[in-house]
C-alpha cells in the first residue's frame, strides 16, 4: 500500500552555492522534483557532483541558498529558509541511514531503534513495543540487547534501517547505505528500503554508486556538477510490475 500519507516530497528550484569569488562553487542549481509516498528513487552521480549537498538540504541539516521544499505535505523550506522547528521535523518526518557509524555505540540495538521515539516523548512502553515489532520485521529482534560493536555490518545496517523507519517518516534519506556491504547484503538492504516504502508509505531517496541494486528502485535521478536530471518511470516499475 502506498496510502496513509499524502504529499511525499516536493522540491522547487533548490539551489546551493558555497564560498565567494575564487572559491565560489555552485553545488546544486535549480533542482526541482517530486517523490511520491511509497516511491524509491536512486540518486546517481560522480564524486563532487552534489549528492550529499542535496541530501543535507532535504534532511534540513544545511539550508539551501534558495528554493522551496515540502515534506509529507508540510512546507519546510520557503525562499531558502527553514520554516518551523527543524528538530521536530527531523524527529517526525525524516529518517536517515548512512554508509556506516549509524548507531550510538553506548546504546543497545533496541535502544538505538527506539531513540527517535523517546526523543519525541513517545511513552516508553509504546516505544519498546514498536521497536520490538520493527526489529522483528527486519530480522534483528534476536540482537535487541547487543551493543553495535557486537553486531555484523549487515546487522548494524538493518538496525539503522529499523531506527530510520520506526517513527514512520515521510522521507527516508540514505547516503550510500550499501557501500560497506557485499553484493548479497547490499541487495537485501535495498529490498528493505523497497518494502519500507511500499508498506509504510515513505518516500525514499538513496544515494548510491551501487549498480547491482538499481533494478530495485522505481526511478533514477542523476546529478552532474549540481545539475539534477530527473528520470522518468524507472527500472523496478518494469521488472516488478505493480510493486509489492
Amino acid at each position, binding site marked *: 500500500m502506498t496510502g496513509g500519507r499524502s504529499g511525499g516530497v516536493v522540491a522547487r528550484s533548490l539551489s546551493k552555492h558555497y564560498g565567494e569569488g575564487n572559491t565560489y562553487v555552485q553545488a546544486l542549481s535549480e533542482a526541482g522534483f517530486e517523490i511520491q509516498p511509497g516511491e524509491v528513487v536512486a540518486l546517481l552521480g560522480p564524486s563532487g557532483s552534489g549528492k550529499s549537498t542535496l*541530501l543535507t538540504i532535504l534532511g534540513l*541539516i544545511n539550508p539551501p541558498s534558495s528554493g522551496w521544499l515540502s515534506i509529507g505535505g508540510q512546507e519546510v523550506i520557503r525562499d531558502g529558509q527553514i520554516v518551523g522547528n527543524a528538530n521536530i521535523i527531523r*524527529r*517526525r518526518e*525524516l529518517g*536517515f541511514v*548512512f554508509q556506516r*557509524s549509524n548507531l550510538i555505540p*553506548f546504546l543497545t540495538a533496541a535502544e538505538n531503534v527506539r531513540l527517535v521515539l523517546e*526523543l519525541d516523548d513517545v511513552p516508553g512502553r509504546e516505544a519498546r513495543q514498536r521497536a520490538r515489532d520493527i526489529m522483528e520485521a527486519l530480522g534483528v529482534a534476536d540482537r535487541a540487547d547487543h551493543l553495535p560493536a557486537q553486531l555484523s555490518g549487515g546487522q548494524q545496517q538493518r538496525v539503522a534501517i529499523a531506527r530510520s523507519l520506526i517513527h514512520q517518516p515521510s522521507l527516508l534519506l540514505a547516503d550510500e547505505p550499501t557501500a560497506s556491504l557485499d553484493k548479497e547484503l547490499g541487495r537485501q538492504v535495498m529490498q528493505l528500503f523497497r518494502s519500507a516504502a511500499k508498506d509504510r508509505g515513505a518516500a525514499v531517496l538513496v544515494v548510491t554508486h551501487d549498480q547491482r541494486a538499481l533494478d530495485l528502485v522505481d526511478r533514477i535521478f542523476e546529478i552532474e556538477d549540481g545539475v539534477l536530471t530527473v528520470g522518468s518511470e524507472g527500472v523496478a516499475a518494469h521488472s516488478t510490475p505493480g510493486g509489492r
Partner: protein
Amino acid sequence: MNLAIRDVRHDLSRFVLTAVGLGLLLTVVLAMTGIYNGIILDATALPDSFGADLWIVQRETRGPFAELSRIPAGLEERARSVPGVAEARTYVAHTIQRDLPDGSPVRFMAVGLSWPDDRGQALPIVAGRPIAQPHYEFLADRSLGLPLGARIPLGREVYVVVGITDGLLASGGEPAAFFTRSDAQKIQNETSNESLRLERAARSARIRESELGRDPELLRFSGAATSLIPAIGPAPVAAVMLNLAPGASEASVRATLEAWQDVSVYSQEEQRALILGGVVEKTRRQIGLFRGLLVVISAILMGLIIYTMTVDKIHSIALLKLLGARRTVILGMILQESLLLGGLAYGLAVVLGNVAFDLFPRRVVVGNEHRLALLLVVALISVMASIVGIKKALAADPNEVLAG
C-alpha cells in the same frame, strides 16, 4: 532511557577509575580542611580549658602561649584582693622531653595547677579523676599515650597518672600533662645532685670573695638550698588567671590591673586572637592556600575529563542532533555525567575521610558543615566542568555523521 547512565555504563571501569582519582584529590582537600580546623582547635583547646576571664602576664609580652612570660608568683595574692575578682590561679608550663625507663622518649608540656583550688576538675577528663594529693599525681593527655595508673619517674620522684584528658596540646603540638604547681616547678628545676653541689659551691665562693663574705650568717646560707635563702623569692610563674565574681565589671577590674606597672592584661578572647594571629597564623594561611590550590587543580582536572569524555562521543552527539534531539537532551547528558562524576568522587572522599582521618598523626576535624561546603564546591566544579564539554557539544556538526 537515560543517555548519561548508558554512556557511563559503556565504559564503566574508566569512569570509576577517574572518579577514584578525583575522589582521592577531594579526600586531600577534605583533610586539609580538617587539619586547618584541627590546628585552630589544638592551639586554643588548652587556653580555653581553664575557663579564665582574664590573663595577667609579664608587661609588654604576648604570653604565656604566644611567647614566654614571667611574673612573680605573689601576683596571685595581689590579684585576688582586687574587687570583683572571684578567683585567681597561677599558670606555669614548660616543655619536657625525657626517656621512660623502657628507653622510649616522651615529650610533653608540664602545666602547673594552683593546688588546692585547681585540681584539674574543669579540664576535659575522659578517664580517671582530678588530682587528689598535693604531690606525685598528674593528669596526662590521651595523645601522650600513657595508661591510667602508669608510674613515670621524672627527676628524683615517681609520678602516677590518675586522670586522662582529651585534646589538650601545647601550641607546638606536644601533649599537655597537669601537675600541681610545686610538682611542675620541681620537675623543671630539679637538677642532678652533682650540679646542685657545684652550683652551691660556686655561690659560696662568689660571696666569700666579696664584701658580703664577711657575714658568717650569709656564708652559711650561701651553701644551702636556693629556696632556703630569704633574699631569693619563690620561682616566678608564667601568668595568673582570673575569674570574675558574678555581676562584676570586667572593665573596672581591667582598669585596676592595668594601673600596675609590671603586667599586661588580656581577656580570653584577646588571648585566643594572640594565639591564632601569631603562633598558628602562618601554618593556617599555608594550609588554606594549599587547599585552595587543590580545589583549582580539581576543577581544571574535572574540566579536562569532561572535555575528553565529550570529544570521545562527539560522533554520537552529532548523530543525536541529526535525529532531532533537543539541545536540553544533549546538555543534560553532559551535565549529568559531570555531576555523577563529582558526586561519586565526593562520596568516596567522605567515606575515605571517615576511615583515614583518625589515622593521621595530627588532629583532623571535619564536621558536617565542612562536608556540606565541599559538596557545594564539588557541585560548582561539576557544573563549570560540564560547561567546557557543553561548549564542545554545541559545536558538533551533524554533517560529520554524513562524512562518516
